[in-house]
């Protein structure tokens, strides 16, 4: 899931200027992150109205990153959209850009910061699990990813900064290499770590490729 966080309200108000504002939410990730579901869209509507900004309409897209579906779902809101000068999108960076493709006159405003692709551990507690590097190495590490979970992308074991199983970058962060080691030890598969993992082939990453 794409984990998002709402931008600071002052930044949003700054971008929204005098409105009027049409608000867009997303039924998928942003709903699960509590950043762009129906509840958050309606809360935002109240906040903006309290700041004397008009909100002529709102919609929760299903999901915001689906171009053709968005066009269909926005049809009934054409009149409301005509009144808006700003379209505030409470979805991930992809959702924002899909709206940019569709909205012609009003300015599209990103309402969230997209953080990472991660797992929901508990309500409102998320953990990064994948950076979509284009060449999955999980099988070499017993299904635990050092590329996305080690701040130094160490592929050949932990660096010299791990202490009591924690990462040098943040003492609250478990060193992923500690997790990998324990997991493979329990499974009797520590020999997986003996081979030198070659430099990663970043040409397989889709970072610079825009279409598949």
């Amino acid at each position, binding site marked *: 899931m794409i984990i998002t966080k709402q931008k600071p309200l002052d930044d949003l108000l700054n971008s929204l200027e005098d409105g009027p504002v049409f608000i867009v939410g997303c039924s998928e990730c942003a709903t699960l992150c509590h950043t762009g579901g129906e509840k958050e869209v309606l809360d935002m509507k109240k906040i903006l109205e309290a700041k004397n900004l008009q909100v002529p309409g709102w919609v929760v897209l299903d999901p915001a990153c689906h171009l053709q579906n968005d066009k269909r779902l926005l049809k009934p809101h054409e009149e409301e959209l005509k009144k808006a000068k700003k379209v505030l999108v409470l979805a991930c960076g992809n959702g924002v850009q899909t709206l940019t493709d569709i909205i012609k006159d009003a300015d599209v405003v990103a309402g969230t910061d997209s953080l990472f692709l991660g797992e929901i551990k508990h309500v409102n507690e998320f953990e990064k699990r994948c950076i979509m590097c284009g060449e999955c190495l999980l099988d070499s590490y017993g299904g635990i990813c050092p590329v996305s979970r080690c701040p*130094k992308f160490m592929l050949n074991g932990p660096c010299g900064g791990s*202490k009591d199983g924690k990462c040098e970058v943040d003492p609250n962060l478990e060193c992923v290499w500690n997790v990998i*080691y324990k997991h493979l030890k329990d499974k009797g598969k520590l020999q997986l770590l003996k081979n030198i993992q070659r430099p990663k082939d970043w040409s397989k990453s889709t970072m610079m490729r825009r279409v598949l």
Partner: protein
Amino acid sequence: MEYKNKSNLEKVLSEGKFAVTAEIGPPKGSDPDQIKQKAEILKGYAHAYNITDNQAAVVRMSSLAGCCILLGMEMEPVMQMACRDRNRIALQSDVLGASALGIRNILFITGDHQSLGNHPSSRGVYDIDSIQLIQIVKNMRDNGIFQNGEEILRGNPSIFIGSAANPYATPYEIRVDRLEKKIYAGVDFIQTQSVFNIERFNEWMDEVRSRGLDKKVHILAGVTPLKSIKMTERMKYYIPGVDVPDAIEKRMKNASDPKKEGYEIALEIIKEIKKIKGIHGVHITALFWESIIPSLISESGLVPR
């Protein structure tokens, strides 16, 4: 006698002598005199001198420039190279450049994370890790091949390959495995994290010897004299990967002259290290206290002849 890399450090170690290296931290500025002054103090007391590479992720004069200043003073440098700030193109390029300028020892490390330094908003590179870099440089030197498989057109880099090892980081069980991987990748010498906890260091060395690794790589044990109580606390609680035992912290706190106590502790640690089978030298890192190194080396009976 001709040595393949013309590194004095390699010559000393291959002759089975106890080697001494000392660290020089480059300045936060472009004034070459700051390196020259430190170097003058240390000249003659070590076989080679490390110049750190933006250590602790704090911007300083480049290691390559510092090493060239040392070469001009006829002192042998160990250039440090971290994977944090350069991708494989820049790293290989700098290895070629260093070799062209006459640098014969390079120490390859992954590097302290940028979030701990003085530019925490920077983006780290970490295209490759230290083990991969060791393997790449070994292949450049011995086979004339770049990481991508292309041949070096003219002039393989002539480098004595070093790296670091930290017996104190966790999980302990994987620490000798990491060393073994570095040896397999092609490392020639190792400088360890500063030793304060001798007991744990001995445990690590027992495992190193039981796998016969002390015969395959030259290990220099790190020594850092503690200058003050503040520095002791900083090393113990804030520097990643350092293990200062409570007993040493207590000695420093109870001492009437902490500077003298720190010096005495360093002397004791060197004495202990010299007894350990399989240790081929010491690497002295006196953070912002380079002036203490000559007497520490003299009193330990380690002055190179």
